């Protein structure tokens, strides 16, 4: 083997060793750097880490040295997932602090969930969290002995949602009974959500009922029961009592309730109070319902996780 050949083999061996060293070394170095930058966060939950396997929406959970519970939870917002850090007290009943770790919401609209004005509402409050004005328990029984006056009663929601749609409900009473309940959502330029969903221009999911079909199912349920008893939204505004209905129904319930109260000639302010909800009601961000609801969902997911695992 001459010098040139030996030189070549030695070069190859040196470069091979150098390559290995660089790959291994850079990997170790970047891991060290990542661990170092995360140390501030992991210090909070070094005490005990809880197993989050199989828990929907929970990314990390544990007990801190200060005896508080730190949960990282996620929920689907308007522009993607919103990741929220929530701190609970030692009894896991009170929310001490909420911060938004990551969000891709619309700038100036949904991104307001990161503002102090919204987040400070979660400081030192009882869990779970709901929105002000949300009906959590059924109060359809107010119609039990009421006489409904024949006619058509219509109510519209006061403000448009972040997509510019305003909810409207029309209740038709004939012979003292509820004949039909129609729910639609109309944009400023007059476009109807039910018509758009029938035409296929407003599509929520590939599978499942369309918006128009879900609205019809809700109306049919009220007609069948002659009350709102089956439609009892939870803190997210959703129900699981009518097959296929996955949209938020809080506005529908409020507007239908108003129409029926008007048909029964019962002043709304005299209606029985909704049963007291557990937890705290907060204000959502006007025009950013989806983003606000995502934060609330993430917080309540974390609260339920602690309830089940402690």
């Amino acid at each position, binding site marked *: 083997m001459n010098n040139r050949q030996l030189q*070549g*083999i030695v070069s190859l061996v040196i*470069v091979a060793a150098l390559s290995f060293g660089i*790959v291994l070394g*850079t*990997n170790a170095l*970047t891991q060290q750097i990542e661990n170092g930058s995360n140390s501030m966060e992991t210090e909070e939950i070094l005490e005990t880490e809880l197993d989050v396997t199989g828990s929907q929406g929970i990314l990390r959970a544990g007990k801190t040295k200060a005896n508080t519970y730190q949960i990282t939870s996620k929920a689907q917002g308007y522009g993607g997932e919103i990741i929220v850090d929530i701190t609970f007290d030692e009894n896991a009943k009170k929310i001490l602090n909420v911060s938004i770790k990551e969000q891709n919401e619309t700038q100036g609209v949904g991104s307001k969930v990161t503002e102090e004005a919204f987040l400070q509402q979660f400081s030192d409050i009882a869990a779970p969290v709901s929105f002000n004005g949300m009906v959590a328990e059924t109060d359809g029984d107010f119609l039990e002995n009421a006489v409904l006056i024949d006619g058509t009663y219509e109510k519209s929601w006061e403000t448009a949602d972040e997509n510019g749609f305003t909810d409207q409900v029309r209740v038709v009473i004939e012979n003292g009974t509820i004949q039909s309940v129609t729910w639609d959502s109309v944009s400023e330029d007059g476009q109807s959500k039910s018509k758009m969903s029938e035409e296929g221009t407003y599509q929520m999911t590939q599978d499942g009922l369309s918006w128009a079909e879900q609205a019809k199912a809700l109306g049919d349920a009220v007609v069948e029961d002659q009350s709102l008893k089956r439609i009892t939204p939870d803190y997210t505004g959703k129900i699981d009592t009518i097959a296929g209905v996955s949209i938020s129904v809080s506005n529908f319930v409020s507007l239908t309730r108003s129409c029926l109260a008007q048909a029964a000639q019962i002043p709304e302010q005299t209606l029985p109070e909704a049963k007291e909800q557990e937890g705290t009601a907060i204000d959502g961000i006007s025009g950013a319902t989806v983003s606000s609801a995502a934060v609330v969902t993430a917080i309540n997911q974390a609260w339920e996780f602690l309830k089940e695992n402690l």
Partner: protein
Amino acid sequence: MKKAKFPVEAIALGIILFSKTMQEAMIVGILVIFSAIFAEEIKRILKHRVPEWSETISVLVLTGVVCASILQLAYAFLGWERSLKLWGIHLILGLLCARHVLWKGREDDDLLRQSAAVWGLWILCGLIREFLSYGRIFGKEMVQWDIQSIQFQNVMFGFLASGMILAFANSLFKTKQYKKNGYCLDAMYVVIPAICYIQPMKFSAFREWIGIGLAIFLVLFFFLSIQKKLIFSRPAPAWRGLPVELLSMGFLYMILNVY
């Protein structure tokens, strides 16, 4: 001026696509150099032992495959995203190393010394791009400035960096990458894989593959028309040929990124 002793096209393509961070530049660079030295050794071993055509095919295939494999292994070990497209580019890097060894280099070339120097510049490029994009060096947060922008990760800066590094290397080693008439066909070996890997724009009105094909054709068309004009310009010797063509490609990407 002499010809460069390092695998110019492979390193140019590597700098264009793999200099977004310092770590990436370090790892891809050293593995490309390893592939070039490996190709040299394989050629030396097979020389006079097999017919020339067999030697050529063996060096090409072995180097291409070894380069693709070691890069894919490195990516897998580091947990970086891998894809078929990426494997294709890694294979092309290996083939370009083999091409240099078979047809451009000479047996007594000191490939390692010049490659190491250019690798150092490659790492520096990665450092600067990472710092300007994220304010980080090797993943470690350093400082946040207003001038920092994620756009420095865009491939157009890869082209610009590649042209500048080659020009610097040319002036350092007194080498050149152009023919007497100033025309450089070698640019095609770099530009075509880069355009196929990442296009500056998309035509969403058509099917995906038609849109991509149209974008590649358009970029190549613009590049070739620029290349024709460059024959008449008179840049410094270190810049002539591949470096200035890569620079012009970078500006072309910058303009077409608007779409």
